[in-house]
């Protein structure tokens, strides 16, 4: 079945059963990062820099150590020297060395017998700083005379003559731009900026770490990827990866922000120093905003040309991004995806990764894609408006489809952009009449999805029920999807499958739940491991029937002779084989280890209606439609949930959310009151249409749906505001004051 071609008829896939962890989560029993305690446990707290950039002259811990109940204090001196590359970046970010590089950078940490004592002790640690000039804006950071954050941080890609804060450079393209723009009837060139936005997971980072002097330890942690945590902690602490066993808690949101480490190595280092007592640590919301990784901020110049009938003739973009005081702004992805929706002959993308005195950026849902989409889809919309073309028809005319050579090189396989555009056009939301001060915006977006290192095991219990062990933490219902896929593969009821997220000691390496890979890669691994298991189950039946294993097939949870020639035996159910497995050869399980490479991108098209209050400049979302290609929706309710959640994060980024730095380089809005994410009363229902263009690289056609949804909202809303106000706003967020200034002709 799955091996030769794709299944098309399903029993369980596409149904919406209750999720297996639902009961625990509605009763308060589910255990998240901060919900575990151990006997003898200590509590940690971190001392953070109040300066955006400063030399650390001296750290005096004596008063803190003298406080009753304090068991350990650590500084950078407690970590090994000599790390290189990204390991050094991670270590430096978790605990500052010679310099504090941003407001909130950790400089010391303390463990004590209670959280309050730890907090008091942190205040007693005296740090002498020599403040240095700082820079937080990306354009300012690469301008002549900007303070240098780190000499020699640039890699080989950076051309001579650029500021030392430019650490990576990307340049790609094809065709002949000059010729392409000459073919256009209209060329539009505009510059855009987007501010950094935070993932805004409601659960702050939290962990409980324990490590002895022998470098062996255990870590309970809220994370998207516990093998990543293990590798990073071991590198930062100078221990062996296998010495540390990492168990993921339930996770209260991540969106990319929990694919790396911040306090985790500190809890282990404190524990090691405190004689191996477990140390619990948790961040406050203000620490989360100041010191974990928001996304990069961006400054972009876009030029696109179009013929009168709507064909894009050429496109070029320059993208400058700061991702904090370390290399890693996702400008590589930005340049890759900037024009990826369309079939364009002449195209060029240039990208700069720039250091600034801000926290080390982390992945945030479709990292790098929303900024690019904001700029490019805004210019495309402006071209359509000025040429009086329908935005959906124009996108259809230029849309990438199967066989199109992507602007970043490879040819697309079967993809669903055209289908999402057609479904958006056919949806009633696209025809609703609009009133005064109202406008409609359309935009498309894309995420390429990901495979990554994946291991899974499937084991048959004595009663024939099935345990699936995977390594990707479940953030949005993925255990339900895995159980559905296992049920489908085995032909047994959904309820007979239990899915566990294994710790790092129980499976081979797994990449995190990131890149929209979990349902694709862990799903594929689950199906392949189930097939491995089924082969073994068939063998047991064959042995019992004394026929060839090849003469046995698997159907509806039973082994069956493959045809009349194989013999006449009644179907042998999984429970019967399982009950005897001790005598027939021992436990039965199946495995998959690999790096699935058949992932395929998910395209989406959003249609939004807004109303802009001409008195205040406030934008209200009236209607919102998400159309996206899921490949195959395993559990459609959770697919819709990804669409809706992604769209609303995009709405927040577009309308409200931004990192605001003062003249002093300190973050001015480090709390949920001032860093305002969307609340229920800001929003309408979010309409969804699931398009299914199967991915040939997955047995059931899954693509992965998590990231794409945050990409179209930025331009879609800006395009709607353009229609409502007549003004093209090129800087996010579209806060009321900014929109009002534009309406009044000052923007």
């Amino acid at each position, binding site marked *: 079945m799955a091996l030769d071609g794709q299944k098309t008829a399903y029993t369980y896939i596409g149904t*919406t059963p*209750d*999720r297996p*962890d*639902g*009961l625990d*989560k*509605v*009763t*308060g*029993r*589910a*255990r*998240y990062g*901060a*919900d575990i*305690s151990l006997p003898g446990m200590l509590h940690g707290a971190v001392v953070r820099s109040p300066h955006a950039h400063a030399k650390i002259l001296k750290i005096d811990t004596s008063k803190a150590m003298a406080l*009753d*109940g304090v068991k350990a204090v650590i500084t950078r001196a407690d970590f090994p020297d000599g790390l290189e590359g990204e390991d050094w970046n991670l270590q430096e970010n978790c605990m500052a060395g010679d310099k504090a590089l941003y407001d909130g950078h950790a400089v010391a940490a303390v463990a004590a017998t*209670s*959280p*309050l*004592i730890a907090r008091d002790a942190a205040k007693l640690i005296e740090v002498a700083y020599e403040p240095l000039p700082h820079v937080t804006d990306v354009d300012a950071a690469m301008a002549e005379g900007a303070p240098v954050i780190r000499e020699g941080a640039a890699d080989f890609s950076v051309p001579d003559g650029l500021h030392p804060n430019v650490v990576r450079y990307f340049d790609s393209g094809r065709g002949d731009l000059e010729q392409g723009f000459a073919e256009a009837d209209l060329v539009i060139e505009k510059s855009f900026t987007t501010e950094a936005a935070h*993932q805004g*997971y*409601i*659960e*702050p980072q939290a962990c409980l770490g324990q490590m002895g002097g022998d470098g062996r330890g255990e870590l309970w942690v809220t994370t998207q990827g516990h093998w990543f945590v293990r590798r990073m902690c071991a590198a930062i602490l100078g221990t062996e990866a296998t010495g540390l066993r990492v168990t993921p808690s*339930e*996770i*209260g*949101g991540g*969106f990319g922000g929990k694919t790396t480490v911040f306090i985790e190595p500190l809890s282990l280092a404190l524990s090691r120093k405190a004689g191996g007592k477990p140390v619990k640590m*948790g961040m*406050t*919301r203000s620490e989360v905003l100041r010191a974990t990784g928001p996304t990069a901020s961006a400054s972009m110049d876009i030029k696109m040309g179009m013929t009168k009938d709507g064909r894009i003739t050429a496109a070029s973009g320059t993208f400058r991004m700061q991702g904090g005081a370390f290399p890693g702004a996702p400008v590589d992805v930005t340049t890759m995806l900037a024009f990826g929706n369309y079939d364009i002959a002449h195209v060029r993308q240039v990208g700069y990764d720039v250091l600034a005195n801000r926290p080390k950026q982390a992945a945030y849902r479709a990292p790098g894609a929303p900024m690019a989409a904001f700029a490019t889809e805004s210019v495309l919309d402006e071209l359509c408006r000025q040429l009086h073309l329908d935005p959906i028809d124009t996108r259809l005319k230029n849309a990438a489809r199967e066989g199109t050579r992507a602007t970043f090189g490879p040819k697309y396989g079967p993809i669903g952009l055209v289908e999402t555009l057609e479904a958006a056009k056919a949806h009633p939301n696209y025809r609703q009449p609009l009133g005064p001060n109202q406008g409609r915006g359309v935009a498309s977006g894309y995420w390429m999805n990901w495979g990554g290192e994946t291991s899974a095991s499937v084991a048959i219990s004595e009663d024939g029920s099935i345990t699936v062990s995977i390594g990707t933490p479940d*953030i*949005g*219902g993925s255990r339900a999807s895995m159980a559905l896929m296992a049920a489908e593969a085995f032909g047994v009821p959904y309820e007979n499958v239990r899915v566990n997220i294994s710790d790092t000691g129980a499976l081979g390496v797994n990449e995190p739940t990131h890149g929209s890979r979990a349902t694709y890669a862990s799903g594929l691994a689950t199906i392949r491991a189930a097939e491995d298991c089924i082969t073994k189950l068939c063998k047991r039946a064959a042995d019992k029937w004394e026929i060839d294993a090849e003469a046995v097939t698997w159907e509806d949870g039973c082994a069956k002779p493959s045809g009349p020639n194989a013999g006449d035996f009644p179907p042998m159910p999984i429970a019967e084989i399982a009950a005897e497995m001790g005598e027939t050869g021992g436990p039965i399980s199946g495995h998959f280890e690999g790096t699935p490479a058949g992932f395929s991108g998910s395209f989406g098209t959003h249609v939004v209606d807004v109303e802009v209050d001409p008195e205040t400049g406030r934008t209200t979302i009236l209607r919102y439609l998400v159309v996206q290609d899921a490949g195959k929706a395993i*559990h459609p*309710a*959770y697919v*819709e*949930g990804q669409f*809706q*959640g992604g*769209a*609303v*994060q995009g709405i927040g980024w577009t309308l409200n959310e931004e990192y605001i730095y003062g003249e002093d380089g300190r973050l001015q809005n480090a*709390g*949920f*009151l001032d860093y305002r*994410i*969307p*609340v*229920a*009363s800001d*929003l309408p*229902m*979010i309409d969804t249409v699931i398009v299914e263009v199967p991915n040939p690289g997955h047995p059931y056609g899954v693509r992965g749906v998590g990231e794409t949804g945050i990409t179209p909202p930025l331009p879609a809303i800006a395009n709607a505001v353009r229609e409502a106000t007549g003004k093209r706003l090129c800087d996010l967020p579209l806060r009321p004051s900014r929109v009002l200034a534009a309406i009044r002709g000052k923007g």
Partner: protein
Amino acid sequence: MTRRLHVSTTLNGDAVDFLCDPRETLLDCLRDHLGATGAKEGCGTGDCGACSVTLDGRLVCSCLVLGVEAEGKEIGTIEGMADGETLHPLQRKFIEHAALQCGICTPGILIAAKNLLDRNPDPTETEVRYWLAGNLCRCTGYDKIVRAVMDAASELREAS
């Protein structure tokens, strides 16, 4: 070290007591002294609602209440919402409607939603949205949460 104070209170109908530092919040006391970790800390500043509980029937952010203020009061948390094995209709509808993704906001939202339905059995969508405006959810975009609350309200109305 600050002298700890003895607090006697009622948690989900059971008499309980604990010792706490006067600086500790009710949320700290629930989680660290009473083993009730269903209420979550998302912000500690009254902005996210993850710590929502009721105090003598009134909806509060337990991160904004001191532990010592619970003396002599009745605290209601998510742990007390189901009746034994029988879930409250809101809890059931949240599962059915896929109204949770990560689930960290769920305990607070369920407590807040129940408090709404206790006083307004027939809320409009707008009333639900405004009542829940103090409870942040970053995963769902609220659509399925609002639907689950409306559906639970209608089931409760039919039952009464």
